[in-house]
């Protein structure tokens, strides 16, 4: 089919369909009364709930740990204290990255050219990978918080084999995941398996979009 005919066919079909497309003046007027939605207002309730739980966890955890450091450090179980401190600290960092990402996404300018806006949005969405990487780093401390000082003195080498092996495996896994969860590995099977599921769909879509953006930018430099 000729190029011109194709354009005419497309345009005339749209014109016909558009005839039935009505936006009532009342709707347009109503929209102008809508106040600019706040960041919290634009978020899904489940995300607000998750954030709230995160803040409570870090807040209460931080407060409890600080009082142990200040008031009863000498008597405290150091394994628990340091494990919990690392866990709460990493959760706080992840929370910070997440909130920063939400604020930046909220402020993205949709009047900019497509490539610019979509690159910023996809990169920000990709920072979700950072949150996941940081949270995976917590893995080993979940295996050490129950250790205590008497174990050091009373346990035999044989008794130590299992906990140390588990901790070593968790440490290896967490460092490996921290190093390897990145954009470059998006096509690896393990990566797609890890980020499989409806809740990860926007992230995976962002990865695809970023590939498209890069392809366009690359072509820009060639031309």
């Amino acid at each position, binding site marked *: 089919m000729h190029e011109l005919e194709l354009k005419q*066919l497309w345009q005339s079909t749209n014109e016909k369909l558009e005839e039935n497309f009505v*936006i009532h003046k009342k709707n347009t007027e109503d*929209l102008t009364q809508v106040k600019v939605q706040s960041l919290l207002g634009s978020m899904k309730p489940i995300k607000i709930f998750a954030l709230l739980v995160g803040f409570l966890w870090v807040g209460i955890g931080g407060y409890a740990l600080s009082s142990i450091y200040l008031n009863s450090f000498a008597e405290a179980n150091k394994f628990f204290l340091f494990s919990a401190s690392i866990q709460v600290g990493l959760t706080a960092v992840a929370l910070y990255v997440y909130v920063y990402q939400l604020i930046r996404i909220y402020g993205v300018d*949709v*009047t900019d050219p*497509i490539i610019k806006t979509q690159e910023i949005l996809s990169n920000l969405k990709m920072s979700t990978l950072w949150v996941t990487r940081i949270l995976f780093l917590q893995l080993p401390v979940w295996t050490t918080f129950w250790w205590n000082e008497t174990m050091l003195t009373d346990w035999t080498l044989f008794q130590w084999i299992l906990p140390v092996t588990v901790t070593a495996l968790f440490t290896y896994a967490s460092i490996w995941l921290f190093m390897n969860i990145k954009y470059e590995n998006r096509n690896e099977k393990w990566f797609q398996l890890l980020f499989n599921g409806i809740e990860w769909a*926007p992230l995976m879509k962002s990865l*695809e979009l970023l590939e498209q953006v890069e392809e366009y930018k690359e072509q*820009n430099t060639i031309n």
Partner: protein
Amino acid sequence: MKKQDQRQLFERIIEQHKGILFKVARAYCPDDEDRQDLIQEMMIQIWQSIHKYNDQYKISTWLYRVSLNVAISFYRKSSTRAKKFTELNDQKAEALVNDKSEKEKHLIILEQFISELKEIDKALMLLYLEDKSHTEIAEIIGISVSNVGTKIGRIKGQLRTRFSQFKS
């Protein structure tokens, strides 16, 4: 710009250029109900960004930027539904092509081809079919004019192959 002027500009833009919103929404959102939500979201974003509009660009250029950016972001959220649509569309196209006029068959093939394009290629194809100049397409997408030419050439090549496959 005063609030009253913003309101008037917004109402004028929607009244005169609602076709742009419709076309973009139709290309990115096959489901009727979702399309209504998408158009609503586009209108909200246009209203919330109206103070940023300056006459350096044509209104249509500015409007295409906003509506395409909103549509691509919306599509990102509902990619699962979009995939389902593509599968359904395949079956629908096969069934429909057999008993239609030549023009209708071409339209079905074209629409299916567009639905399968990647998001940014889809934006480019949409603007090309709307007869936008390469300069305006470059301003909307944010790439060089020569890149627009190269990309459109490639997409047209794929479309030609699709049509020749259909004929054979």
